[in-house]
């Protein structure tokens, strides 16, 4: 039955529209106006995504340091874009990617609710008072020219202009439709007074917003109807409250494919809007009185009900914020308890889960965090494969001594751990990168996506190389067997140095981090390899090791240095600066293999 519900809903809407068109030709004007308005909203949202989606995302990252800043961002971004849905979607994807806190996400949503009231002011204050259609025409023409340009920014700008043009045209159509409609019909006969009116029109407002997926469209409709005298002021107030409830359905639908954080934010949005709406309904009489006082103080005419409705819309959303702000900490606690985070698993992806949207900033941040997760798993497994503990190395003041003391065998099924901790995560990363590479992302973002996928491959190579040398490492490092044990310890020390160096890089603040430090490590490594070969030759010449042990060591030395190189390659890619220009500079400055070989030779090597 539920399978057919959307079809039944669609049939009902189309049937009602056909009936309305049959009853009144003016209804066609109004419906066409709503259609143009909704199309305009879609164009505006897409345009802002193309024009400044990534800018908006970058600003959002910085604007969430405190709750007031997060709320301010919500107000401002929604006022500029006139799309609380766009701001909600970006917030959900940022929260899902772990870039902002739940409290900051809720702050943005609270702010967006207030920002969305600017639409009512624009419609009531400007849209109905000037010949808005006259402005629509040049906007559509300029927008169309820009929309067919190659540059993404110009295309986005064109979509924004067309979006505004369509919205203006839609408002003009609806206004004309209601003006003509008023001549033949009087819908105020359907007005309901008292509690029944409050309940029925609140539900109507919510239903209209769910159907049109836009509280702006509902507000436009009710303000225009109010200005044409087709709805009573009292019932219009109830519709505005209903629109606030209806808008949360859009957020809930959007969160269905999000991870647990996105679901928490959507539930928080629903609670906030429900509490606001219920309080507004309970306090409708004093609120109405307050609106009259404020409107009189602002010089809004006694009969200008459209502007008074805008005052009411702003006032009750402000009241909701005032009510919920002191309860923010409790709301966060409730949401975290109600929608629990899944138990952390080192073998499951943590960041590239759920719907992260198509914003480059969130996609790359989630992937970078997942790479750090894979790198951490790889570092632990490499250490254990060589009878070392990463935490011991990290706390060590003398790594050679820590390594020399690590003689206790660490028993583990390396193959199974590789499958669980490395391979499954690598597969998830490759799949995620492939899915996102199919999106129309900017070229620098695609380059970064490819780099991070390559980093995952390098980490897998690093672990596999250690797998090959594990057997001999077990044999020669679990007891002191003289020179050969010292040689294997030297490999373990080199690997430990590389791993701790990368851990240090991981702990550095992103602003101070540079992947170029890895170049020096890699060059020092090449010399270490040459030194190891000379040492084993000397040991063989003086019969301190057997020829068989020497060949084992030379083979394993190759694996160890392959692992170290792969770890450094991965680190260089993972820890590239987040700033795109700085990342581009690092790509220019880094050295290829020939340049690294042709660099300065140490005194040790020359001797």
């Amino acid at each position, binding site marked *: 039955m539920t399978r057919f519900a959307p079809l039944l809903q669609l049939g009902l809407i189309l049937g009602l529209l056909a009936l309305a068109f049959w009853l009144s030709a003016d209804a066609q004007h109004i419906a066409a106006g709503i259609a143009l308005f909704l199309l305009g909203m879609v164009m505006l949202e897409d345009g802002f995504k193309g024009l400044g989606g990534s*800018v908006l995302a970058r600003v959002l990252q910085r604007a969430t340091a405190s709750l007031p800043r997060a709320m301010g961002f919500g107000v401002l971004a929604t006022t500029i874009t006139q799309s609380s849905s766009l701001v909600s979607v970006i917030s959900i994807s940022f929260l899902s990617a772990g870039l902002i806190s739940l409290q900051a996400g809720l702050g943005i949503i609270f702010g967006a609710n207030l920002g969305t009231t600017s639409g009512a002011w624009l419609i009531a204050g400007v849209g109905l008072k000037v010949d808005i259609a006259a402005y629509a025409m040049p906007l559509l023409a300029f927008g169309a020219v820009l929309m067919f340009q190659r540059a993404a920014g110009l295309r986005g700008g064109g979509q924004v202009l067309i979006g505004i043009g369509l919205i203006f045209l839609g408002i003009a159509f609806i206004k004309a439709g209601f003006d003509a409609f008023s001549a033949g019909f009087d819908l105020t006969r359907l007005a309901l007074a008292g509690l029944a009116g409050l309940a029925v029109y609140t539900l109507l407002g919510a239903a209209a917003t769910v159907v049109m997926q836009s509280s702006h469209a509902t507000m436009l409709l009710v303000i225009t109807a109010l200005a044409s005298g087709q709805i009573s002021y009292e019932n219009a107030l109830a519709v505005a409250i209903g629109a606030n409830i209806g808008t949360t359905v859009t957020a809930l639908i959007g969160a269905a494919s999000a991870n647990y954080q996105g679901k928490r934010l959507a539930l928080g949005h629903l609670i906030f809007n429900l509490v606001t709406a219920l309080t507004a309904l309970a306090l409708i009489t004093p609120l109405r009185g307050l609106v009259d006082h404020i409107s009189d103080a602002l010089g809004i005419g006694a009969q200008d009900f459209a502007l008074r409705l805008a005052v009411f819309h702003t006032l009750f959303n402000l009241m909701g914020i005032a009510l919920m702000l002191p309860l923010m900490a409790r709301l966060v606690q409730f949401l975290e308890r109600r929608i629990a985070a899944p138990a952390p698993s080192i073998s499951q992806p943590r960041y590239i889960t759920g719907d992260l949207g198509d914003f480059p900033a969130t996609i790359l941040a989630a992937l970078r965090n997942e790479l750090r997760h894979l790198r951490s798993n790889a570092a632990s497994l490499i250490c254990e494969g060589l009878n070392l503990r990463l935490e011991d190395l990290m706390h060590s003041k003398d790594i050679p001594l820590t390594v020399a003391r690590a003689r206790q065998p660490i028993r583990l099924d390396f193959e199974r751990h590789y499958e669980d901790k490395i391979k499954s995560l690598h597969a998830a990363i490759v799949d995620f990168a492939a899915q996102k590479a199919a999106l129309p992302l900017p070229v*620098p973002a695609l380059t970064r996506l490819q780099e991070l996928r390559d980093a995952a491959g390098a980490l897998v190579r690093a672990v596999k190389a250690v797998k090959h040398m594990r057997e001999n490492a077990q044999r020669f490092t679990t007891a002191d067997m003289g020179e050969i044990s010292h040689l294997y310890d030297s490999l373990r020390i080199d690997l430990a140095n590389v791993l701790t160096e990368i851990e240090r890089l991981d702990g550095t603040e992103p602003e101070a981090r540079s992947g170029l430090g890895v170049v020096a490590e890699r060059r020092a490594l090449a010399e270490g390899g040459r030194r190891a070969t000379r040492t084993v030759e000397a040991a063989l010449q003086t019969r301190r090791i057997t020829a068989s042990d020497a060949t084992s060591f030379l083979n394993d030395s190759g694996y160890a240095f392959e692992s170290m190189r792969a770890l450094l390659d991965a680190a260089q890619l993972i820890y590239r600066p987040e700033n795109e220009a700085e990342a581009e500079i*690092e790509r220019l400055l880094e050295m290829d293999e020939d340049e690294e070989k042709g660099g*300065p030779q140490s005194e040790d090597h020359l001797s």
Partner: protein
Amino acid sequence: MAHEKLAERLGAYYARLGAGKAHKIKARDVEKVLAKLRARRADLAEDTPDKPEKAARLHTKISTADELIGRAEWLLSELTRMAPPQAAPAEAEEMPASENTTAPSAEAKQD
């Protein structure tokens, strides 16, 4: 030529920038990278190795850091050289557009 490969890479970068496939680099971005490289070099110089092997390793790292700093300084000088000249507003208005942009595709910008 001291930085032949780097110069080649810079040429390829300008081609990508012209095609809208790269992010535009400004001199202040290079200065930021240079500051990080110099800070890293200072950290390395503070290290006092107790064994000859460590000293050799450190020597290599410091030499590489110096080389990277040299490359970054060269890049900075190239970007400064190719940047549009800082003319007074009145002069800039009179200057033909073609003369005002010496860097290949310097206007191209990818978001």
